[in-house]
């Protein structure tokens, strides 16, 4: 699976607005690099072979 393209400031603002955050808030300047860091932390998932695996939507180990 290819790496995600870098999140741009414009895309970030659009997503922030869609999420219900105040896109005019100066706080977003602090949030932007934080979100970039979090998304970068997910990169190892892209190199994992998960083909054919159904998601464990809730982990229920041997419930009976």
């Amino acid at each position, binding site marked *: 699976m290819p790496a995600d393209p870098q*999140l741009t400031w414009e895309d*970030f603002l659009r*997503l*922030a607005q869609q*999420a*219900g*955050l105040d896109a005019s808030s100066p*706080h977003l300047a*602090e*949030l932007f690099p*934080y*979100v970039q860091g*979090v*998304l970068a*932390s*997910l*990169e*190892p*998932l*892209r190199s*994992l*072979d*998960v083909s054919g*695996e*159904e*998601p*464990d*939507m*809730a*982990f*229920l*180990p*041997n*419930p*009976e």
Partner: protein
Amino acid sequence: MDTLELCYLSAAELSRGVRDRKLSPVEIVDAHLARIEATEPVLNSFITLLPEQARAAARRAEAEIQAGRRRGPLHGIPVGLKDLFNTAGVRTTSGSRLLDTFIPKEDCTVAARLQRAGGILLGKLNMHQFAYGPTGENPDYGHMHNPWDPERISGGSSGGSGSAAAAGQCPITLGSDTGGSIRIPAALCGIVGLKPTYGLVSRHGLTPLAWSMDHPGPMTRTVEDAALTLTVIAGHDPKDPASSKAAVPDYMAALTGDIRGLRIGVPKEFWAAPVDAQVAQSVREAIALLAELGAVVSEVSLPLFSASQAISNAILMPEASAYHRDRLLQDGDKLYPPVRLRMEAGLFISAADYLRGQQARRVFNLQARRLLEQVDLLAGPAVPVTAPHLLAPTVDIGGRQVGTTAALTQYSRPYNITGFPAISVPCGFSDAGLPMGLQLAGRPFDELTVLRAAHAYQQATQWHLRRPPV
């Protein structure tokens, strides 16, 4: 008995003393309240103290026991609950002023079971705001402080539970663990912290952080007390949709001290991650001692260990943001800024990435389960460092600067992904006098083996008998 000595008796010792009418619940509760009064200005373990309610409960317990009506093993024994366990008539803040006046109408299942067994609630324990952080920072109710060095963190998110148990404020405390929030403060404060199998202990009435990773569990000074508490709180609860119907064994019966032939695997990947030299040495010595006691130790491999932070972030963060979304959008500026950032960032993780995280979780679980067909337990450090200084953004590990949150959760997150039972047990002290923890993890619902090994180790060592200078 001297009141300080009373505060450092284990819950099991107190329980036997009460049963045999050698100790009085009133005397026990008064001693712990005095200890809290003396140490709380330094530690800040509690958000809400309940001295009058606890004294009244102690008087009732004493009368019942004298009349031959002992309710259970915890009758007359003080307990403390992290402040996200709902308690009827007692405010439950989840560590945020936003919930400063929230008074639940009913007890969570864990609180109800503790009360049914006779436990006496001393108060509600301080925590990282909304359980969203491993350091025990809380600007709303004050940061938590480590009893071994108050300039350092107690760990989190169940930081008040860790400091209260370690400092003799309360023999049994309860925490919750989504990425290590029981085991991290346990390791940093020098106590035992057990994250039971997902589904074994009810989450009903707890403020969620991430539904599929939240685990309530006991934090105590001894493994025996963890087993005693688990026996009381474990078991099916129809109010929790993830609650298991598996039969609950007598966990106290597991504490035989015999671990001959027990197979313990040590994933080699644990040592490739950043880990403080003294912690590594102490954990290796602990594992060697388990081998001396008869365990068969071998090196194993868990290649996906390196992906555990990514898997955890992909699942935990969107779940937390989904739960807190309305609060975040309405009152985001009233949250602790690092908590706010985490909650907001979770809104940017796509559904596709969340589901890929869940797919990866399945692959991770299969790999970990196969490992536990080869061995009975996995061993390693609970936390790669000793308690960092308060508010330190990074920690130095062998000359390398590592983010504090990433470092603290490095070894605990894997077992929130798998849901396996995992315990942190004290395994030494650094040159600076700070405690370190050995982590043992077992198969789903095999708490018996986890507790048996941890207890055998604790019986062969004296780390848990040291007292903090506070």
